């Protein structure tokens, strides 16, 4: 029996609808994500524990250096929760963005031989990072409960919105830099620098009020326009502010800037997709 090709129409191979095609091939996307999750730590004794060891060690180092030596632990209430929730947000961003940037080059064997919607790879990198982040969020959440966190729809909504902003932003940037990385491997190193800056240009280690003190109102607005700033603050809002910490105040205009961050992330997604489509015709030749 032949497949029903009386209804099929003549079309150009190798052209598709980009991200829309990705969601039409959810089955393949799910298998790709599962594969990555499965093989990631295969052959290591601690396995998945490694994805917690790194952020926890980082956390411990910063906690000792900033919290104890620089005294933030006494000026910011529940500093461990503050630090850990912000860390979870930027770790999610950095993993999704970094792996998305490498995803096209890493999957060159497939891309050179079979036509697939290539957006699959940056999207699956983001989903793998999400899978990795969920248990970290649970760890922060459990710790927050121990310190007296109580459920509120607004807190949970804030965390979800933060996750959504980072997911969309990192997918867009992953598409953009993943496509550029095919021709210029410099993109990978450039992205590492962006991530390092992003980590310090958002209130993860310190509080936004310190920034507001040192920068004028104009630069403080610019600071808040960095989409990661409201995303991190949404995590703080959900996990940390709920505990009524000393010196705990939400970022001024948090919701407005969260909305702007969401729009920025969507813009990055559209721009990433456009550049990706422009460059993808040459992927198979250049890899």
């Amino acid at each position, binding site marked *: 029996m032949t*497949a029903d*090709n009386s209804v099929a129409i003549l079309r150009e191979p190798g052209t598709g609808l980009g991200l829309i095609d990705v969601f039409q091939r959810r089955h393949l996307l799910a298998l790709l994500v599962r594969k990555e999750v499965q093989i990631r730590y295969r052959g290591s004794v601690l396995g998945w524990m490694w994805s917690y060891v790194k952020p926890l060690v980082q956390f411990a180092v910063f906690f000792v250096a900033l919290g104890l030596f620089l005294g933030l632990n006494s000026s910011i209430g529940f500093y461990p929760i503050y630090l850990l929730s912000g860390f979870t947000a930027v770790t999610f961003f950095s993993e999704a963005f970094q792996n998305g940037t490498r995803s096209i080059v890493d999957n060159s064997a497939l891309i050179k031989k*079979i036509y697939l919607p290539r957006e699959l790879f940056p999207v699956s990198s983001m989903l793998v990072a999400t899978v990795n982040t969920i248990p970290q969020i649970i760890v922060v959440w459990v710790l927050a409960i121990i310190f007296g966190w109580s459920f509120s729809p607004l807190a949970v909504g804030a965390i979800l919105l933060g996750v959504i902003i980072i997911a969309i932003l990192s997918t867009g940037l992953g598409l953009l830099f993943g496509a550029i990385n095919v021709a210029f491997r410099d993109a990978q190193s450039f992205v590492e620098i962006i991530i390092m800056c992003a980590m310090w240009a958002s209130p993860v280690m310190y509080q936004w009020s310190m920034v507001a003190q040192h920068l004028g109102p104009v630069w403080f607005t610019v600071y808040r326009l960095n989409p990661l700033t409201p995303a991190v603050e949404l995590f703080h809002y959900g996990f940390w502010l709920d505990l009524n910490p000393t010196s705990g105040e939400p970022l001024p205009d948090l919701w407005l800037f969260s909305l702007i961050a969401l729009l920025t992330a969507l813009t990055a997604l559209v721009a990433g997709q456009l550049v990706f489509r422009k460059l993808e015709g040459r992927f198979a030749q*250049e890899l």
Partner: protein
Amino acid sequence: MPKNSDSAPVIVVDDVHKDFKLRHTHSIKETFLAAIRRKPLTTDFHALDGISFEIAAGDAVALLGFNGSGKSTLLKLISGVIRPDRGRILTRGRIAGLIEVGAGFHPDLSGRENVYLNAAILGMSKKETQARFDEIVAFSEIEPFIDTEVKHYSSGMFLRLAFAVAIHTELDILLIDEILSVGDEPFQQKCLARIREMHAEGKTLVVVSHDLDMVSTLCSRGVLLRGGQVAFDGPSKEAVALMRA
């Protein structure tokens, strides 16, 4: 099922040109330095230079030509992996390529997981894969090892499984590039038989191979490429004779 070879074409290749720019630089620094020294950044290579033909549903067509004549480039264009610079290619229905079998296999996954992953890569849904899973494993003849990680397979076992997946996908057009050079003689015969069976079911075949005797019996039509152009298009036996001349 009877096939009408006069029916509408399933593959249209219309004045297709493909140049390869061989890029000499791979970082911004290198590009910058080369630009300053006025060295050429790229060199052009004309792989395909105005190719046109049509393939009707149910045809079996051999693409013939010596190394560098553009056969594999043409096959990649039909599969959609690369796109033409000028002209256009149109296809109808589902296409699957036996191009470098096993490209999507991951050594750390079991045979079973790889079957599902690769079937999905080749465009199969979960249901279609489940329905054909037993058939695929039976064809590969490696049942006892299906839950073993693929990295422990011998190269023969690996090829058998990869081939079995590719050849059981739901498709209308099958693209074959030098696949029958793999596996041992009995397995090659089995694959060839399966390909003939698919052709008998009305699937369209496009074959690239250096095994001229095999392709001239498998395919009725031959398209001979020379220097990126069609040198001959007609019965495969004549095309092979012309090529050997």
